[in-house]
């Protein structure tokens, strides 16, 4: 149950992360940013992608994109914590309480082959044969 929820949450988080990546990629420089930028004169004359590559454009992300990105990270991390499997208790004493004495203290020398089981089985088959016969 919580694993499915975790998977859904992490998928949603990754989808929102991808959306924020796409909107960061697609965003255009707003006119006010260009006008107030100290490289305003360059921007008209030079290619925008070149300016981006040499970091001459102030890349102020809108608060919406930043918030979306951070929320997406938080949601995805919660989802991953939920969908990764349960931890197991490593203490030996805890493990020992689940075992039975037959499982733990078994040895070949305790096995008995010469017991009443054989007679019981033969008596049982005898009775069965008799009841079928009559």
């Amino acid at each position, binding site marked *: 149950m919580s694993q499915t929820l975790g998977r859904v949450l*992490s998928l949603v*988080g*990754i989808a929102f*992360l991808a959306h*924020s*990546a796409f909107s*960061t*990629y697609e965003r255009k420089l707003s006119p006010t940013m260009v006008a107030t930028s100290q490289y305003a004169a360059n921007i008209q004359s030079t290619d*925008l*992608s070149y300016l*981006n*590559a040499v970091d001459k454009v102030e*890349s102020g*992300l809108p608060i919406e*994109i*930043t918030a979306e*990105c*951070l929320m*997406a*990270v*938080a949601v*995805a*991390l*919660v989802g*991953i*914590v*939920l969908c*990764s*499997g*349960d*931890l*197991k*208790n*490593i*203490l*030996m004493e*805890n*493990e020992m309480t689940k075992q039975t004495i037959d499982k733990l203290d078994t040895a070949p020398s305790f096995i008995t082959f010469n017991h009443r089981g054989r007679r019981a089985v033969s008596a049982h088959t005898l009775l069965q044969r008799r009841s079928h016969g009559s």
Partner: protein
Amino acid sequence: MSADAQGSGSEDVHKYVLPYIMHNAKTMQFARACLAAISGSAAGILGLKNFQGFAFYAVSWIFMSFLLLAVKTQFKPHLFFKGGVKDIFTEGLIGGLLSYILFHTFLYGLVHLYQ
């Protein structure tokens, strides 16, 4: 008995269940690998640089470790890890940082550089 020449190695065999230790380590490794990928991508998208990026890694690491501590171990880490809280907060910190830088570089290049 394991061939480790460590003094505490033979005691651990009787004190802890070794397959479960491995299982827990694998679970934590999965969670941390995902953390590195996701927070690295986010840092790349946000365009963090220099110490901002490391600070973001530290913040997300602490957030994730706290989540693991709260959700996975119900604040009883000594039941699941030999080192207790220290194991949750410090194990795999550097390895995660390398994956984080890898994803940061990838997403930063994809989103900010090549337009």
